[in-house]
């Protein structure tokens, strides 16, 4: 397990599939976590193997990807349902939740990645 900081943001593929969020293309564009090479090695995880990313606000399973330029202490998930399963909902009194800079842990997992509809269904209480 590594301790890290989660950042979420737009990518061009996530943006290009915004109007097709039920599609495989959107899933491929938004459901993953980027780590640098060192962190992937530390976790013993290869590209496309699943990782469990956990914060104080939730847990999400996504495949790992590599971004060689990421610093050691940052992981990245594109904005969307998978990132938002674990971002900080606190608005700090100014309306805006914490979509970036969320303390997180990442570990290897054999758990499956939920598709969009199954992920949303977990919010039914």
């Amino acid at each position, binding site marked *: 397990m590594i301790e890290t900081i989660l950042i979420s*943001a737009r990518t061009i593929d996530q943006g290009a599939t915004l109007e097709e969020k039920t599609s495989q293309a959107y899933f491929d564009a938004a459901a993953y976590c980027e780590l640098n090479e060192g962190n992937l090695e530390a976790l013993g995880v290869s590209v496309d193997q699943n990782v469990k990313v956990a914060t104080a*606000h939730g847990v999400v399973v996504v495949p790992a990807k590599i971004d060689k330029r990421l610093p050691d202490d940052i992981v990245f998930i594109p904005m969307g349902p998978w990132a*938002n399963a674990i971002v900080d909902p606190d608005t700090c*009194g100014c*309306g*805006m939740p914490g979509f970036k800079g969320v303390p997180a842990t990442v570990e290897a997992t054999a758990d499956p990645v939920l598709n969009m509809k199954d992920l949303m269904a977990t919010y039914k209480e």
Partner: protein
Amino acid sequence: MPVIKDVVCTFCGCLCDDLEVTVEDNKITKVGKACKLGRAKTMGMFLHERIEKPMIRKNGKDSELEECSYDEAITKAAEILVAAKRPISYGWCSTSCEAIEKAVVLAEETGSLFDSTANVCHGPSALATQEKGAPSCSLGTAKNYADLIIFWGCNPVHAHPRHQTRYSTMAKGAFTPNGKKDKKMIVVDPRNTDTAKKADLLLQLNPGTDYVLVEALRAIVNGHADVLPDEIAGIPKATVMEAAEMCKAAKFTVIYFGMGVTQTRGRYKSGDNVSSLVSDLSQTNKVVMIPMRGHYNVTGFGQVAAWEAGFPMALDFSRGVAYYNPGETGTNDVLMRREVDAFITGAADPGAHFPQESIKYLYKIPAIQVDGYANPTTEFSDVVIPAAIAGVECEGTAYRMDSQPIRMKKLIETTFKSDEEILTEIIAKVRELKGEGGA
């Protein structure tokens, strides 16, 4: 075959107005000059699955959505809003100002809270502007004059792909005839992004330390570099000094700022401090700041809401007059407090872009969606009303990120109602249910 020129792209706040769209048999077959985002958006209705019919869940969130008529869906939506004690209307940013105007009327008519996607985007920038101001200029002025471009917490290569060639670093301007050669570029980002690759200087700060870095730059600009430690926000002091020197040497600086400023620690106080830095630098140089707006007409929402009701977002009409206090009246605030009892959204997708705690509550209250495509919001919506795509299937006005109004074209015919028509019909039905007649 007919090619429509000067088409306005309706993806991001760049509102590029030079697209060339080929239409054959009422189908868009080619989109010229657009970026990947613009092409996907403009051709979307021929690539993606539309919401073909209005739909209603008749037996709660666990039941399936069933097709119905526009009239039934609009009536059901009006019934939900009229029955609610504290409804909220959210979104309305990927649509025309004309539709937003109707959304304001509906919110007022139903005593709703009323908010835009700025709630999860540049809401803190509006607060920063109200705190300290935001000296700005048009993208045309920026293109022609700016010789230092700072991208702070934004990544235009991915989010605003044509920004650099049309308006900023690569654009050839009247006073920068050689484009990039006449300009310097600084990127401020904790990630070494694709935008940062071409920067003259990357300030790779620690996440959430934007305020600290702005403060350090201000200290240097104001002659107090001696008080700074050797490392600031994870960046060597010498690198921060270099950035400050670039700012002081530039004739015209534009600070384009994004979610890296608004969504991180400090929120609106970071934007507020950027404004102070602009003020400090402006004692000797020309400096402006422009927010990189995401939804193509989120700027228009702020304009319309402000001219109609006095505030740009996070409005509350429950008192009969507009009240505004983001942090109290913002959408995620009221959802987190479990305060509202009905939800209507259009031209936005809160299901995909809200934090988990807010969505859990949206599964508990009646929800109405007005949109062209199925998305995560559809999953918890009880009423789903399909809409025409503004700027493709109907015309209207949108505001670019620099607050310039641009007229969007209608490119093809459609049988779907526009957001404006849908909202107009919901307003009429609400008035009818309240016993005020449909007029």
